[in-house]
Every structure is written in structure tokens, then in C-alpha cells.
């Protein structure tokens, strides 16, 4: 029993050195995550993906990550060795990317990839791993798991590829899943099927989910809480379903800039950027 949050992030800074001075991709990002669905929302360059990658230790050199505290289930991620990361990543911490085309191994059959991930973290027989892989494919609502098991990634549709990736990421039974625009490349009807899968898994396993997106409709309809990022900073934290009542002028402007089926307006509001938002 514990009251400790699953993830604690305090004062996270990600800096890339550059010719024109350092680029601060994330600045002083702080939040705590329980077993909930947290949205990180923002426009391109806001630092939302950087934040997700920094949590997983995936910021490439020469990027520099600094934080007052970066802890997953009490484990200090800042001091973790490579071996320590290998025990965490794919097992307790997992990430789903936007496009399955680039995240799945193109020359390995789907089933083999899921089995590989599973056997990396659990000492089991091939047979047991195969059973688990089929079970995972079924749990992400793939109708004919045995057929899909034998397919190569290029033989999958976008929605199916994304579900396969989710199956692969969840086979290690992670406690925290970071999903970076997991449905942005998908059609809306398929998008909702993939969200249904995530929804069920979050509810069934009590997994924590960080959902990185630019889509405000998905934030308010799918997530519990939202962090709004702008220029590397968290400008607002709010209840995701009450995004419409957001207080920060940037969040309000972003919502007003998006066309809305229910609230037509002749001219959309544009975002007038205030320099004080970045200080």
C-alpha cells in the first residue's frame, strides 16, 4: 500500500545546445501522476513530446535533461544505469508512438515481435510467450489473432498496426504507458476503436497513462486531467472534461481557434501570443 504517486516530475528542464544559444525544449515542468489518464496538450514545439521522452530517458545527445526530481514509483530515474533502464523500459514503462510504420520492425512477423518483447522481460517458454502474444492481440480487439500473428507489419492497416504496437507495449504489463499522438495518423472511426482498447486496459489494469496530443476534442472526451504546454512550459493544469472552463489565456485562445461543430462562428479567433506566457 502506498500513497506515493506513480510518477513525480519536478522542475524538468531539457536543453539542446545550438549555435544561436541553447534551446530550452522543456522548462521547469512539474507534475505528479497517479493511476489516471493525463493529457499533455500543446502545439508543435510546445515541449509535449520532449517531456514524454525525457521521462523514458530517450532524449538523445547532445540534449541535456535536468530535474529536481524525476521518479517513477520511487525510483530515481535521473540516477538510473543502462541496466536499470533495461529493467524498466518495455516492462514497467512503455511508450506508443504516432506511426506504427516506424516503430515496428518491418522484417519480423507481428507475433515474433510481441513474443520477443515478452521474453525479454519474463523467463518463459516459447509456447507460453506465444500464448501471451495471442492473448494480447485479442485484448486489443484484433478479430483473428492467429492470422495477424503471422503477418508482417506492412500487411497491416494503420489502425491494426497501432493496435499491434499497443499489444506489444502492453505485453510487459507496464504500470505507466506514454502514448505520443497514438491516434493522430488514424481515421476518426478507427481512432475511437483504438481509444476504446486503451480505455479498457487503463480501467482493467489500473495503469497510468500519459496521452500526448494536439487534439483538444480527444483531451476533453478521453482524459481525466490535462497539462497545457506552451513554449516548453506547463501554463495550466486542469480537469480535462472542464477544458472549456480553462483559465489561462493561451488555453482559452487555443479552444476558440478550433472550429467546433456545435458552436459555429463566422470568423475564428486567432491566438495573439503574449510574451509573459513564457516567463
Amino acid at each position, binding site marked *: 500500500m502506498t500513497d506515493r504517486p506513480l510518477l513525480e516530475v519536478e522542475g524538468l528542464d531539457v536543453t539542446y545546445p545550438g549555435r544561436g544559444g541553447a534551446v530550452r525544449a522543456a522548462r521547469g515542468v512539474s507534475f505528479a501522476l497517479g*493511476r489516471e489518464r493525463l493529457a499533455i496538450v500543446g502545439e508543435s514545439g510546445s515541449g509535449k513530446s520532449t517531456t514524454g521522452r525525457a521521462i523514458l530517458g530517450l532524449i538523445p545527445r547532445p540534449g541535456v535533461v535536468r530535474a529536481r526530481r524525476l521518479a517513477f514509483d520511487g525510483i530515481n530515474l535521473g540516477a538510473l544505469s543502462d541496466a536499470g533502464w533495461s529493467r524498466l523500459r518495455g516492462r514497467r514503462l512503455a511508450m506508443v508512438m504516432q506511426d506504427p510504420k516506424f516503430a515496428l520492425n518491418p522484417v519480423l512477423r507481428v507475433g515474433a515481435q510481441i513474443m520477443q518483447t515478452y521474453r525479454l522481460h519474463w523467463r518463459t517458454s516459447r509456447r507460453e510467450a506465444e500464448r501471451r502474444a495471442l492473448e494480447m492481440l485479442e485484448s486489443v480487439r484484433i478479430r483473428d489473432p492467429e492470422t495477424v500473428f503471422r503477418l508482417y507489419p506492412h500487411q497491416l492497416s494503420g489502425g491494426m498496426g497501432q493496435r499491434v504496437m499497443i499489444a506489444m507495449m502492453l505485453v510487459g504489463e507496464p504500470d505507466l504507458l506514454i502514448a505520443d499522438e497514438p491516434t493522430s495518423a488514424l481515421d476518426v*472511426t478507427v481512432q475511437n476503436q483504438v481509444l476504446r482498447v486503451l480505455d479498457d486496459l487503463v480501467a482493467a489494469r489500473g495503469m497510468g497513462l500519459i496521452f500526448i496530443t494536439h487534439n483538444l476534442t480527444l483531451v476533453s472526451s478521453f482524459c481525466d486531467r490535462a497539462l497545457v504546454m506552451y513554449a516548453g512550459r506547463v501554463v495550466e493544469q486542469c480537469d480535462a472534461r472542464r477544458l472549456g472552463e480553462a483559465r489561462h489565456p493561451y488555453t482559452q485562445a487555443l479552444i476558440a481557434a478550433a472550429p*467546433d461543430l456545435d458552436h459555429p462562428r463566422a470568423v475564428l479567433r486567432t491566438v495573439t501570443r503574449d510574451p509573459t506566457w513564457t516567463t
Partner: protein
Amino acid sequence: MTAPPAIAVERLWVTYTHEGRRIDAVRDVSFAVAPGETFGLVGESGSGKSTVLKAIAGLVAPTAGGVRLAGRGMTAKRDRAERRRLQYVFQDPYGSLHPRHTVDRALREPLEIHGFADRDAAILAALAGVGLESRHRFRYPHQLSGGQRQRVAIARALILSPGVLLLDEPTSSLDVSVQAEILNLLTRVRSERALTTIFVSHDLAVVAHLCERVAIMRLGEIVETLPVEALRASGAATPYGRELIAASRGYVRHDEPLASADVSER
């Protein structure tokens, strides 16, 4: 006697052959767009919406059926006058602007091809018309932001004073705040110039914002055509139309989220 539609698509078929298999990308599609109207084509990937637009522009040849421009049937190859009157804006301005041509050259080329005089004045006017300044004139595409590049693509389309503007997902690769600026720009030029516009998008809210009538496509066919008011009211006549509109409104949660109490119980 009323004016003929600006664009009439009549029993259009577009068929591709891929690895010996026949794929009907567009199947018997017909619709008419009145002069000055903005017509939306929505659908998911593979629905054929972009192929219809390409067939109107003459970028793909119809297998059967055809397209009329202001009442006159067009042959498979567009003549120069038709090409001037039909202008296209693509989703990705990075792909549609030549990386080694300046903005000035991108805008000058169509003027030269179509023999327009006073090119410098026309280029400056076109830039001003899309909210760009003269300092942008000699920049290369990579020196512009995504929104600015799309403004250049729109300026290039408008510089020949076309009658019909064909827009293929023109804001899909842009951030919400930039999308708002481009949509406002399109709204303004459309009313200033009485343009007939066909707008292709997968985003129903964006299409509803700009269009008066919307056709929903699926697997190469038009499932239904409805006025934007019906789209906004979720009043589609077909099951697929209703499903698409419902999906666009966001995810529907079927259970309560884990309350914070569940966290402390562990």
C-alpha cells in the same frame, strides 16, 4: 434560365490497376456546385475524396463519366484556359512549393505561363492579399513557417484570378492556431472574389466551418450529401454518416474513470 453549375461532376469513375487487381477509387460520383458555393467532400482515408478533386483538376483521367466547367464538358487534358480557371491548393506546401524557388519565382511562373502583364504589381498584390509582406517575397520555402508557406500556396492559386478553387486538406498539417488564420483567410478571399470552392478534408468541424453543403464519401462512393446545418445537428440520413459525425465529436467513455480513492487503496 439559371446559370449552369460552376462545376458538375457527372457519373465519374476512376479505376486503378494495382498488381493485377482492379481498384475503383471513385465509383459513379455525381454532384454539382453552384457559382460562388463552397462544397465539402469528407471521408476517411481511401474514400476517394482527393481522387475526385484530382479528376476535376485533370490530374487523373476518369475511367468513365466526366466534369463540366460552367456547363462545358472538359476533355481528359485541360486546356490553358481551363487550367487557369481551376486552381489547386495541396495539403503540404513543402511538397507543392519548389524548394529552390523563391516566393517571387513561385508566384511569377504562373503569370508568365498565362501571359499576364504587370507581374511585379500582381506579385505584390497577391502577397498582400494573403497577409504576407514584401519582405517575404525573396525568401525560400524553408525560410517560412508552415502557415506562411500555405499562404504562398494560396497566393499562387489566386494570382491567376481563378473561378474555382480546389482545396485538398489545406490546413491538416498546421497547428490549430495557424489553421484558424488560414481558414479566416480562405473565408475572406472567398467572399471578396465570389469563388466557387471545393474543399476536401477528413475533419468535419473544419469542413462545416467553411462549407454550405457537404458530401460524405466512403469506398469511392458518395454515401449522402447534406446541408451543413444537418451536419451540425448530427442529422445524417445514413448509418455511416451518423457514425462518422458521432466519431468526430470525440470519444464516448463507457465507464467512470478511476476515482482518486482507487489510487490510495493500492
